[in-house]
């Protein structure tokens, strides 16, 4: 319509300059992210590696799915460990073995991390507890995240060495009777790596969960208190379900970070991979392919395989946790589960079921 057009023509448009300022981002993104990504996909289908015997690179020559086939068929019969005991041995492709190592180490660090972070998040946000110096504690908790993982790894390597402080303390306390080598035990090497991960990330997780808890409406807590809910019941019935979205976020980002675990594992095992290669992670293997063997073909294939595995794991976590969006269904399920008649329903729990479904959580 004519008046609109006239208004548009009189309006000064800065769109042109906005596009100009976006150019640096696009240039750097395309040059440093998109092109290398494309080349990774390209190399995955090429035979391209450095031959030490010939002193030069072989390739790149097209080889189809060979690199992927190699990744999935290159394996050996290996023992599997629960703590320090072997629970059997069977054949697995190397990548599955390294992935198992990675996930075990990640879980060993993540489970304590999430429990401790949840507890700390609840305590720090609970006004009734009247904790002192919370700002100090929060800063101190977050500080390990600022230290480089490699520095952390070297520090713990020295702390836990055979003649290091930890062994000496344990010996003087009488727990150890002779020198114990932490670096030669499958369980303890994984424990040290998991411990470092825990220390580095629990501060971050605590802050995230705290922000999630602070996002819950105060009135719900008040009504729960009025209804006589204990702290324990409040946590499981109210806080935990409403934290589900943040929880999922923490879980997925930690999973992605855990799969990419490299620097800590490499430094703690000094590049060796731990006893029986039980702490050799997938990214350590990728690092060896790129830097030692200079086999860019297999490295590209491994990167793509890891991308799909990470995506599959993240998607599965996401879909398992998201249920139907129909709030009434949650209410109905709640009623069916616990009560025969509507009037016996606990109104607070009904309200919770409705809200949690609106926010995308699982019903109670």
């Amino acid at each position, binding site marked *: 319509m004519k008046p609109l057009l006239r208004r548009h023509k009189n309006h000064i448009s800065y769109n042109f300059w906005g596009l100009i300022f976006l150019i640096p981002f696009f240039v750097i993104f395309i040059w440093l992210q998109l092109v290398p990504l494309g080349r990774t996909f390209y190399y995955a289908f090429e035979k391209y*590696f*450095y*031959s*030490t*015997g010939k*002193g030069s690179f*072989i390739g790149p020559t097209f080889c189809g799915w060979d690199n992927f086939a190699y990744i999935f068929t*290159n394996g*050996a*019969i*290996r*023992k599997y460990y629960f703590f320090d005991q072997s629970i059997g041995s069977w054949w697995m492709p*190397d990548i599955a073995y390294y992935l198992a190592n990675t996930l075990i180490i990640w879980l060993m660090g993540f489970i304590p991390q999430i429990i401790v972070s949840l507890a700390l998040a609840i305590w720090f946000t609970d006004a009734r507890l009247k904790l002192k110096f919370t700002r100090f504690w929060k800063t101190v908790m977050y500080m390990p995240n600022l230290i480089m993982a490699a520095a952390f790894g070297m520090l713990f390597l*020295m702390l836990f*060495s*055979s*003649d*290091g402080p930890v062994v000496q303390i344990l010996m003087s306390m009488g727990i150890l009777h002779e*020198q114990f*080598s932490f*670096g*030669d035990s*499958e369980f303890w090497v994984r424990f040290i790596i998991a411990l470092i991960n825990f220390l580095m990330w629990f501060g971050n997780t605590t802050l995230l969960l705290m922000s999630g808890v602070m996002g819950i409406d105060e009135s719900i807590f008040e009504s729960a208190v009025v209804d006589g809910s204990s702290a324990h019941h409040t946590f499981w019935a109210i806080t935990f379900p409403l934290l589900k979205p943040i929880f999922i976020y923490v879980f997925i980002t930690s999973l992605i970070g855990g799969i990419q675990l490299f620097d800590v594992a490499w430094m703690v095992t*000094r*590049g*060796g*991979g731990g*006893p*029986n*290669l039980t702490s050799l992670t997938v990214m350590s*293997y990728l690092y*060896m*392919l790129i*830097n*030692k*063997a*200079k*086999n860019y073909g*297999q490295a590209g294939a491994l990167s793509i395989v890891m991308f799909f595995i990470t995506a599959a794991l993240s998607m599965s976590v996401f879909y398992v946790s998201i249920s139907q969006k129909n709030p009434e269904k949650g209410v109905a399920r709640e009623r069916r589960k616990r009560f025969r008649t509507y009037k016996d329903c606990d109104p607070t729990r009904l309200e919770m079921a409705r809200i949690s479904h609106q926010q995308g959580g699982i019903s109670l």
Partner: protein
Amino acid sequence: MKKSMLAVTALAAVGLLALAGCGQTGSSGAPAASSTPKAAHHFNIRCWNDEFQGRFRNYSTLWDHTNEDGTDTLKDGTIVNWIIVENKDNKYQNALDTAIQGQDAAAADDKIDMFLVEADYAMKYSQQDIAMDVKADVGLTDSDLAQQYDYTKKILTANGKLKGVSWQAAPGLYAYRTDIADAVLGTHEPDAVQAKISDWTKFNSVAAEMKAKNYYMLAGKDDSYRTYSNNVTHKWVSDEGVCTLDPNIKQWVKDTKSYADNKYLAGTGTDYALWGSAWANEMSKAGSTFGFFWSTWGINFSLQGYADPAKLKKADSSNLWGKYRVCQGPQSYYWGGTWMVGAKGSDDVAIIKQTMLDLTCNGTIMGKITRDTDDYTNNKAAMTAIGNDPTYGSDFLGGQNHVKLFTAAADNIHMDYLSAYDQGCNESFQNAMADYFTKKATYPEAIQNFKTKLKATYSDVTFDATFDAAL
């Protein structure tokens, strides 16, 4: 008004801070050319530690002074730039390979002029075009090279051309502690001790004697590896790319396993592996290990540092200066050595030639190096002279003339079975066998781990049936 004043003050403070960084000392912020004219060109040397740096600074006739930023200035004004990348995990080789690939495209001042190689990967680089022919390209003559030990020349000869020279020969020996020798064997004289450990059977029986008196014969599982691996009869990896397990290396596995089971080793774990912290500690007064296998460079470069951590350089109750002696040990061997290689494309061939002449051909200078540092230099005439000199003795070794011990042995070193894959094979094999010694894995499993690690280090290696045979 107040806010804008605050902003101006903040900006001024930041500006002052930035300007303070660019002081007139010009040490770290400003480029190196601030203290010397930009026209002075660079001589780039690549190495993995500061051993050669020390030799160059103290003994090269071209050196003038060291600059504040770690580079050196030569008498003609050239700046020597040191590019030091550590050896572990193939880092040095990787960096060197990348630099070699970019040699043609690099600017004249950025090209590699000289790089160092170790015995473990000498073969790999001697075969490459980047290595300058010492006689044809650099200009050394046969008479210059006459006094060098044959094996140091043979190892870097590719297609009949000599590609690099070394200032040191590295015959291997066994360094033992006199106090423990007195306590267990009753004597610490090198000849008497050598008679007691002159072959492996005797060596093992002395190990049992050491154990009976609560001492250890060796510190860790890697200690005796070089003695076995230098007396092999097969290359690690053949020219066709097939990796094979030499019987002598298998013997090392058997012997070390029995040492580990009988507790003749101070420790079997990763801390007692070569260069581990507990292993290094065993060489100091706090340790209780009888002896260590070292080559000649190891005496001055490593053992001295571990035995005398406070660097007092004289006998003291807190260190073991003067308390070590050396003897031949159960088997003769060599361990490593460093070679200088000139890089094609360098614009400073004269400097390369003079450095090589000074440090690897000049008997006077090389004799001085030995007298000062106890290093065994690559000059037959100088070493024979020092060996026969009754007044020469190493202060660290309590006055022993260790050079005399090796003038005969050095001539008998053979490096016939080197391959380009040695560094990766040696490292991976020792690491893999560690699990077997600590009882974490059986022998076949340790072999499997070795194969896994080696395939991740070299893509084109296959394995033959020697790995499947039982121990």
